[in-house]
C-alpha cells in the first residue's frame, strides 16, 4: 500500500480543464491515462471481462456527463474510482439476479497459477466490506487515504477492514497457502 495519497499531476489537470470544455481529445487522453487501471479494477470487482469493458466505457461516459461535480481541488483519480465502484455494484446486483458466470481469471503460468485462482476464488467469497479494501489497497496499490475516500469511510475504518480482510483471506486459503510456503 502506498503511504501517501496520489494527487493529480499538472498534465492531468490541464486535460481535465480541457475536458470541462468538452474537448474530445481531452477525454481520449484521460482514457489513455486511466483506462487500463479502471478496467483492471472493474475486472477485479466483477471477474468478467465483458462486464469490465462495459463498466470502463460507462465510467468515461459518466465522467463526461458529470464533469461539473468535480471540485477544482478534488482528486480526480478518487472520483473516477468511486464512479467505477458504483457501476460495478450495479452490475453485481444484476449478476445476483441473473447468476452470470465469471471468467476464468488471468493467464499467468507456473505453480502459482493454481494458488492465484484459489486466491481469487477466496477473495470473491469474502464479504464486500473486506474484499473492497483488499482490491483497492493491495491489488490496485491505492493509498489508504484515497481508498477510504472511494469507499466513503474513515482511514482507521479502512485499515481495520483491510487488516481483518487479509486475515480472513489467509484463513480461507488455509492448506493452499501452507503448501505454497
Amino acid at each position, binding site marked *: *500500500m502506498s503511504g501517501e495519497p496520489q494527487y493529480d499531476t499538472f498534465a492531468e489537470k490541464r486535460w481535465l480543464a480541457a475536458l470541462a470544455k468538452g474537448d*474530445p*481529445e481531452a*477525454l*481520449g*487522453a484521460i*482514457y*489513455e491515462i486511466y*483506462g*487500463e487501471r479502471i*478496467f*483492471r479494477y472493474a*475486472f*477485479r470487482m466483477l471477474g468478467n*471481462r465483458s462486464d*469490465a*469493458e*462495459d463498466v*470502463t*466505457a*460507462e465510467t*468515461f*461516459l459518466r465522467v*463526461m456527463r458529470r464533469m461539473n461535480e468535480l471540485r477544482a481541488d478534488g482528486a480526480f483519480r478518487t472520483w473516477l474510482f468511486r464512479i467505477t465502484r458504483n457501476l460495478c455494484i450495479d452490475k453485481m446486483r444484476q449478476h445476483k439476479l441473473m447468476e452470470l458466470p465469471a471468467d476464468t*481469471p*488471468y*493467464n*499467468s503460468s507456473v505453480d*502459482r497459477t493454481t*494458488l*492465484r485462482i484459489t*486466491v481469487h476464488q477466496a477473495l470473491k467469497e469474502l464479504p464486500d466490506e473486506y474484499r473492497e479494501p*483488499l482490491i483497492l489497497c*493491495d*491489488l490496485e*496499490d491505492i493509498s489508504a487515504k484515497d481508498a477510504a475516500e472511494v469507499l466513503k469511510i474513515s482511514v482507521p475504518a479502512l485499515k481495520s477492514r*483491510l*487488516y481483518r480482510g*487479509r*486475515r480472513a*483471506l*489467509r484463513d480461507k*486459503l488455509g492448506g493452499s*497457502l*501452507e503448501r*505454497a*510456503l
Partner: protein
Amino acid sequence: MNNNLYNKLVDLYAGDELPEELTEELVGESFKNTDLRHDMVSLKETVNILRTDPGAEFTDETFNRILMRMYTKGLEVKTRTPEPDHLQLKLPLSG
C-alpha cells in the same frame, strides 16, 4: 506481549508498515514463538500474493473494444493511438 498486541504488530508487519526496529524485535520474538512465526509468515505471504498479482490483461484489443463501446454510447473520443483497422476506410488497391 499479549496476543492482541502481537496481532496488531503482525498486521503492520504484513503490510510493510512496521518500523525497522520493531520489525527486528518481532522477528526475534518469532524464533521463540512458533504461533507468532506462523502468523507472520502466512499473513505476509497472503499480502505478497495480492500485491504481485498481475491482474487482467489489457491489450490493444481491450483498449479498442472499450473505445468502441464508448462510441456506441455516443461519446466523442479522440485518442493519440491509431484508430482500429475496422474503423478505417479502405481504398481499393490499384494495379
